[in-house]
């Protein structure tokens, strides 16, 4: 069977399983809809959290990112796992004890203010939408790469699937589907990593292989450093060698950590377990299952980097491996020769390896559209054969458009072929990528639905709505959200890729300090907390918008050698939030006795809320 046939089989089978699970776990009440009836075992919840967390970006792009960044790629690894320690120690058990449905719920009740609730709702919806748009696009990209259908058709298929199982099963359906999706995505990630590790180092464990000697002698990492030095790239293992200095790596790592702990679709998972005890175990299992992928990604990154350069450098057209030929068609990797008929990949001006992007790109601050891929390759070929009199040398243009080197996604997508694995494993990777994108999208959609239907509709607009009514609103909101997310996926606004930093920065600068102080201080009152959140929110948004769109120079704050990247600014926004809240606290009244009792009860492990029906819990 061909790769394409296998892909159809795997995608078809896995999608049927997801729909079957959704049907089996369909729900009839809001408790099941939002928090899966709080009956999810810790390990299963951990697995679902892991699938929820690991998006198309984690699955497809992260290893590629590390592969091209070397040491500095570690900030994503540390940031996105270290955040779970904060989550487990500072938030998860207490929020489970609090026992409502959403993050805005806690903020609204603890600070006894609908303004605080509204700020939290708006942030939660904004953060989730930025994320989900990227996921829908991810579904489309995976479809188009493996099944050769149009990206938009892929987005619509993905929309249909998510729509069915998210509206039918709510959190319960989503949780059990995510457990299945976890297994699909982790298998698809580990098999190629193990295969390429054995091939290069003889070690079956990729984590050991990464620190081992290559079969043809010399440590892998030392050799990679050597290759990077020869080609003019910054060192692979040395810290703070290239673009990323110490202060920036530090702030980005910290912002990602606090942002992870503050992301509403992650926090809400800990509401779905039976008890406080289970919430702690759940956090452990979540990070354990995430770590399986995150410890493997750097190995895949280094293996594929080494293998890619080794199998391409200095080769003639006839010698190029078949994976290059397969992926050349997609434009993810492109060879534009200078006329010597030997491929050269380097960081300098003589580089001949590029990638291709359809749609608008920026060249020297101007937006342009590249001609179709075939036109570029044909034009360049003509330029070579005619000796420069006809056709066009496309290399300078692509270099200025920042398209030097292969697309980073190729690292994960082409690894199975680099390791010469069977066709069905390549197809499994497609199913894994889809599982990663779908599981994250569905979790985010539920957060949007619960924020609007529960926090705004049931708590603020129509507090005495019936159970049936609320469920209907929940389902309708999720339906509308799927459609909006799909539209974003089909017409991606240019900002999607940049706003992920936004999502983390905002979560770090707004939610995280408000929740932590809400639990660990009984003195912090409404006004300081709301002002703190707004300060963090506005400072962070201003900095990101001004530097990404307004062309503002990054600030050095008079103490750092280089300006702080917008990705790391959330850490400073968070510090400002803490600072403003704590300085203002003594000037404003302490919270009421009822709120103090609430904090006490959240801290006390005894007498945890039974799985009460929504009527009594929500109106408490």
């Amino acid at each position, binding site marked *: 069977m061909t790769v394409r046939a296998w892909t159809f089989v795997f995608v078809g089978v896995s999608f049927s399983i997801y729909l079957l699970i959704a049907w089996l776990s369909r729900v009839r*009440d809001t408790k099941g809809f939002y928090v899966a009836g709080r009956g999810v075992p810790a390990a299963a919840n951990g697995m679902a959290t892991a699938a929820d967390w690991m998006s198309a970006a984690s699955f497809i792009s992260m290893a590629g990112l590390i592969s091209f960044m070397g*040491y500095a790629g570690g900030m994503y690894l540390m940031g996105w796992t270290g955040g779970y320690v904060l989550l487990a120690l500072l938030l998860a058990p207490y929020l489970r004890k609090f026992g409502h449905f959403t993050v805005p719920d806690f903020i609204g009740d603890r600070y006894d203010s609908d303004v605080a609730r509204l700020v939290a709702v708006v942030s939660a919806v904004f953060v989730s939408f930025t994320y989900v748009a990227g996921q829908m696009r991810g579904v489309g990209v995976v479809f188009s790469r493996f099944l050769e259908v149009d990206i938009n058709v892929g987005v619509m298929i993905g929309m249909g699937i998510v729509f069915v199982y998210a509206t039918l099963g709510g959190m319960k359906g989503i949780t059990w589907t995510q457990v299945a999706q976890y297994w699909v995505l982790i298998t698809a990630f580990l098999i190629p990593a193990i295969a390429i590790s054995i091939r290069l180092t003889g070690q079956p464990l990729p984590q050991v292989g990464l620190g081992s000697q290559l079969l043809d002698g010399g440590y892998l990492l030392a050799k990679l450093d050597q290759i990077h030095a020869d080609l003019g790239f910054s060192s692979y293992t040395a810290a*703070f060698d290239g673009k990323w200095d110490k202060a920036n790596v530090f702030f980005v*790592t910290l912002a990602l950590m606090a942002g992870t702990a503050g992301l509403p679709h992650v926090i809400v998972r800990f509401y779905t377990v039976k008890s406080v*005890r289970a919430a702690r175990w759940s956090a*452990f299992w979540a990070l354990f299952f995430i770590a399986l992928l995150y410890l493997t990604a750097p190995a895949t990154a280094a293996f594929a980097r080494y293998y890619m350069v080794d199998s391409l450098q200095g080769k003639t057209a006839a010698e190029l491996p078949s994976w290059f030929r397969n992926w050349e068609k997609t434009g993810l990797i492109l060879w534009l020769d200078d006329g010597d008929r030997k491929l050269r990949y380097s960081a300098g001006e003589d580089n001949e390896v590029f990638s291709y992007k359809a749609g608008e790109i920026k060249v020297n601050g101007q937006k342009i559209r590249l001609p179709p891929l075939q036109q570029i390759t044909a034009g360049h070929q003509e330029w070579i054969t005619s000796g420069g009199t006809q056709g066009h040398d496309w290399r300078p243009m692509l270099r200025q458009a920042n398209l030097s080197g292969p697309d980073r996604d190729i690292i994960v997508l082409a690894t199975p072929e680099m390791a010469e694995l069977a066709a069905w494993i390549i197809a499994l990777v497609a199913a894994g990528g889809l599982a990663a994108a779908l599981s994250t999208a569905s979790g985010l959609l539920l957060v949007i639905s619960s924020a609007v239907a529960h926090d705004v509709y049931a708590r603020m607009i129509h507090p005495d709505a019936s159970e049936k009514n609320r469920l209907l609103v929940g389902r309708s909101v999720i339906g509308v959200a799927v459609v909006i997310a799909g539209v974003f996926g089909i017409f991606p606004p240019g900002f999607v890729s940049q706003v992920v930093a936004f999502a983390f920065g905002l979560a770090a600068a707004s939610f995280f300090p408000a929740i932590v102080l809400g639990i660990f201080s009984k003195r912090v009152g409404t006004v300081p907390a709301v002002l703190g959140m707004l300060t963090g929110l506005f400072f962070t948004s201003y900095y990101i918008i001004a530097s990404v769109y307004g062309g503002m120079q990054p600030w050095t704050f008079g103490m750092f050698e280089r300006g702080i990247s917008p990705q790391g600014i959330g850490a400073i926004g968070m510090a400002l939030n803490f600072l403003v809240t704590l300085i203002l606290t003594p000037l404003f009244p302490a919270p009421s006795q009822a709120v103090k009792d609430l904090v006490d009860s959240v801290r006390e492990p005894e007498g945890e809320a039974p799985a009460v029906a929504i009527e009594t819990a929500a109106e408490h």
Partner: protein
Amino acid sequence: MSYEKPQSVEPIFPQPEHLSPAVQASLRRYWRSNVKIMGVLLVIWAAVGLGCGVLFADVLNKLNLGGYPLGFWFAQQGSIIVFVILILVYAVALNRLDARHHAEIEALKKRSLKKGRAGGEE
């Protein structure tokens, strides 16, 4: 209607001012131990993740762990392994602390029940 009505509506948040001084003292002890455990684990978290992985990565890179420069290893492997272990330790320690606290509270309840009965007989 398909949802279940609760049989009895118990107060969800126990009111601390109704608790006896002994129970309140037990609660305070519990919270202090909790904060202490958390503090120690967070110090390790910061030292390994932000310390070894970022701030001292360039210095640690002069040492080697097999084929790994040590700072690089901490940034891409070591810190993640330590994070997983930290949460495991926290879950075990806190769940044990919870159990001890639960036993303490139960003992206090029994004692106050006995006292109440003894008082009634007088």
